[in-house]
């Protein structure tokens, strides 16, 4: 298939969207509908790539009924450590309502009918993303698949002006000159093989940071999903009907899919084995599960396990910021960042505005992806329009550092070294999940050392570059995560510290984090709430 003709592709667009999951496709659609000429780039394939396509999602969908809305917003405020912004929650609920209705009316998504009405609290991944792809094509969006972006381009004033990348099935590099860029590259799951997540290596956050953007909420990044051992299927909702056991068959006290996952992690660390049986579902519920999420049953059907009557071993796979809440810091209602011309959406952006300190399962992520995508697409199109005609003559400067423009004189570290550090310092439950400063600090020191080596000498070109950049993005991600985790000397939402088990009212703030060679943190006041809610 690759033709290896090395002619670089030189393209222009008003708006470039990087990433073709739900956030990217909604951004592309909205920008195109605002009149922009849109190009969408995906590392994989828009329509199958990313956790939504393979996993499917519950959706935070409520009718615009004040009581229903209030309940939806109040439901998880305590879980989220009171870091959410009420105004953002309301606008995301509004936008999600509109988008789900459009998905039915305009993309003809086949929602189930319950009590005579379409049931819109969830979508099947393959069906949803296949329809988003055809919809954006109808809207005039150009799509380049298998074309990982590798860096952002800026003009002389630091305004984002394009992207560069590689077309891996053609063996050529590409460059796009653009008036605005939306980063919708998903979160970072550190190549853990959690369902659909190996494309989620945090690339967008690295690109954004190199252009000068900030992150927020990176301490809330340690989501782990339950999967049958040795499989990828981290679909966790139905484990709410499960009982967990020691390897000898006695119940594992305190274990549960929500609120008891750390017990599972401890037992896995101690003995390596936790057994599970989905034994609390009635026959009717079992039937509903099979229809509701066929992919949940793929491992069971293929391995000959009846999850309702058999006990099977389970594991926890790192889902990082895919089901955590941290990401690129948003500075405006249009999902702008601190860098002019750069917008962020979906898992690539912080979800603290609607989730606060906790997400995990359950529908907020998908609502955020489609809503923030819509806001960002509209914002990017407006920014593109605001630039004068001379914008197409801007000088383009690549801002990619690690792996592209090494510093002088460092010790060269390669992709394998970086992946090894990720495996040893980020995947393990006793470092990233069951957090304690005494283990976080040495882990961070390892990550810092690898970063330094990376900056010092790692370099690649062509088809080798995307992989090296992904490794750099994961190391950068992990360093922001652990630095923020150390800055939060309390337990709030997902960010729990063994030595600080309680919530500290004096730390009712968000934590902005940034920098690459030297990482900094800064407390940020919580917006959109009554003062002193916590």
């Amino acid at each position, binding site marked *: 298939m690759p033709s290896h003709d090395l002619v670089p592709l030189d393209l222009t667009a008003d708006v470039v969207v990087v990433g073709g999951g739900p956030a990217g496709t909604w951004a592309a659609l909205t920008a195109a509908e605002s009149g922009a000429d849109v190009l969408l780039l995906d590392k994989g394939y828009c329509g199958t790539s990313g956790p939504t396509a393979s996993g499917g999602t519950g959706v935070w969908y409520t009718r615009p009924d004040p009581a229903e809305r209030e309940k939806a917003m109040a439901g998880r405020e305590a879980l989220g450590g009171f870091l959410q912004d009420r105004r953002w929650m309301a606008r995301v609920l509004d936008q999600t309502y509109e988008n789900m209705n459009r998905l039915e009316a305009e993309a003809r998504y086949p929602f189930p009918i319950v009590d005579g009405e379409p049931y819109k609290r969830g979508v099947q991944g393959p069906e949803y993303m296949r329809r988003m792809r055809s919809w954006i094509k109808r809207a005039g969006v150009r799509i380049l698949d298998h074309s990982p972006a590798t860096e952002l381009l800026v003009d002389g004033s630091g305004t984002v002006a394009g992207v560069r990348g590689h077309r891996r099935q053609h063996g050529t590099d590409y460059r796009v000159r653009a008036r605005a860029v939306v980063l919708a590259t998903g979160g970072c799951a550190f190549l853990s093989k959690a369902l659909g997540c190996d494309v989620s290596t945090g690339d967008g956050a690295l690109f954004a940071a190199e252009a000068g953007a900030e992150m927020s909420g990176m301490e809330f990044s340690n989501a782990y999903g339950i999967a049958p051992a040795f499989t990828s299927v981290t679909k966790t*909702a139905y484990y709410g009907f499960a009982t967990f056991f020691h390897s000898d068959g006695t119940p594992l006290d305190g274990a549960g899919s929500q609120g008891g996952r750390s017990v599972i992690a401890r037992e896995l660390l101690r003995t390596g084995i936790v057994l599970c049986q989905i034994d*609390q579902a009635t026959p009717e519920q079992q039937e*509903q599960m099979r229809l*509701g999420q066929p992919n949940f049953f793929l491992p069971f059907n293929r391995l000959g396990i009846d999850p309702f009557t058999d006990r099977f071993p389970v594991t926890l796979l790192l889902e990082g910021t895919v089901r955590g809440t941290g990401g690129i810091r948003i500075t405006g209602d249009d999902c702008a960042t601190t860098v002019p011309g750069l917008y962020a959406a979906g898992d690539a952006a912080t979800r603290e505005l609607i989730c606060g300190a906790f997400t995990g399962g359950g529908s907020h992520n998908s609502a955020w992806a489609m809503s923030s995508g819509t806001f960002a697409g509209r914002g990017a199109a407006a920014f593109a329009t605001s630039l004068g005609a001379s914008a197409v003559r801007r000088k383009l400067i690549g801002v990619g550092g690690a792996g592209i423009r090494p510093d002088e004189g460092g010790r060269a570290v390669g992709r394998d070294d970086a992946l090894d550090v990720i495996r040893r310092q980020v995947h393990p439950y006793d470092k990233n999940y069951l957090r304690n400063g005494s283990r976080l600090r040495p882990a961070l020191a390892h990550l810092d050392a690898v970063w330094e080596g990376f900056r010092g000498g790692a370099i690649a070109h062509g088809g080798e570059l995307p992989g090296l950049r992904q490794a750099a993005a994961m190391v950068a991600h992990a360093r922001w995560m652990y630095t923020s985790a150390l800055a939060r000397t309390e337990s709030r939402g997902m960010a729990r510290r063994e030595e600080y088990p309680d919530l500290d009212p004096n730390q009712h703030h968000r934590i902005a984090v940034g920098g690459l060679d030297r990482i900094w943190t800064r407390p940020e006041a919580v917006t959109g709430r009554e003062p002193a809610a916590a």
Partner: protein
Amino acid sequence: MIEIVSASRCVTCDVCIAVCPTNVFELGPGGIPVIARQGDCQTCFMCEAHCPADALFVAPFTHPAPADSPLRDEAHLAASGLLGSYRREIGWGRGRKPGARLAVGPELGRARITSAALP
């Protein structure tokens, strides 16, 4: 991981090469795709869902299936109905009703924490 490309079923449409998010396939002899980079497979089942000929099979493991595994035996997979089962379940393929139409799971209740007091 992806284990099987059935040469007898494949209609050489190249869809799997296009849709695999991690670029696992390459075009092989006679237009039949080959599993060129199994180690990059993320076990997401998307190629299987999109293959119009039920020619692909993804074993649920995140590592290669052992050589003697029945999940690498095409005849067994065809006979047991596992080949093409994911497409059937999501209702993809001519004349099928989209599975999305029926996808209403059970109401998810409060978290259940395992208690040692359980029988």
